[in-house]
């Protein structure tokens, strides 16, 4: 079992519940935030190994939060997987310009999510 910690940032409790079930079942520890500002605060304080970041969130969007994390010394190296509703190239371009490492489209497929998390954190 892994001791790696993942921060889930999503304003949808339903999405958080599903992601937590899948990733906790694979042995990861979970932290959750329900808006972009909370995600920044938790990432800075807790230094997770990976962040799963929704794009559309209150207070700060996933784009804004990721840009902020990349500028901070303490959080600039934490990998971020962006969870996007739209899969158009323009949106994906913004994701990578913000500094995210990978992205996953909604509706999130559990097996794809696990594969992407493992590709960053290792098995």
């Amino acid at each position: 079992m892994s001791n790696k910690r993942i921060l889930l940032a999503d304003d949808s409790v339903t999405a958080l519940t599903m992601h937590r079930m899948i990733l906790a079942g694979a042995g990861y520890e979970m932290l959750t935030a329900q808006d972009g500002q909370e995600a920044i605060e938790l990432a800075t304080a807790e230094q997770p190994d990976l962040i799963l970041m929704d794009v559309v969130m209150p207070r700060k969007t996933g784009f804004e939060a990721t840009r902020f994390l990349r500028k901070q010394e303490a959080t600039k190296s934490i990998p971020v997987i962006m969870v996007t509703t739209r899969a158009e190239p323009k949106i994906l371009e913004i994701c990578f310009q913000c500094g995210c490492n990978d992205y996953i489209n909604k509706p999130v497929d559990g097996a794809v999510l696990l594969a992407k998390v493992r590709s960053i954190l290792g098995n």
Partner: protein
Amino acid sequence: MGMRVESAEERLVRLEEQVELWRAEHDHQSEREQELRHRLSAQTADNRHCAEQLAAAEQRIGHLAKLQAAVHQLHEAAMPVDVLTAIKEIVANLIGCEEMGIYARRPDGGLTLLDGIGVDDEHAGTEETAIVSVPMHLNNRVVGVIALFKLLPQKNGIEAVDRELFAVLSTHAARALHHAGLRAWARNQGVSL
């Protein structure tokens, strides 16, 4: 005593014996290699089978997590507005729909839009434009409909897990709304349920 010099014939015999030994050893090693190759091949097939089973299991776990999250959210919702939010989140995040409506059935058989994503009152009652209509059952009666009008562009149609989510919504959505309505009524009456 002088050392005896090996004759050419003797040397030939000795070398032929040595060659025979090497040949036997080579044959033995070839058999061993063959056996190891077979074992490796069987192990590789076994590993592939295990990987396929693991992938299928993880796929199923992902599906079950969706279903469990959906049921959990519907029944965790305290007030009717929370249930409507849970239904919208399930349809948007777990199914992948960007236009949908939740309709209540009126006594005259018409439909009244309760809530939705990307729809307004103009869509109310236009169930025929929906790509999927999920009936909401309560006590063996259809009391409303969840209509999906447009899926996310990256979504390639309705999948098996979506049908399972429709079944969850069909069975649990109206019940969760009904219970939340009872809780809201009780709260207005100053009663704790």
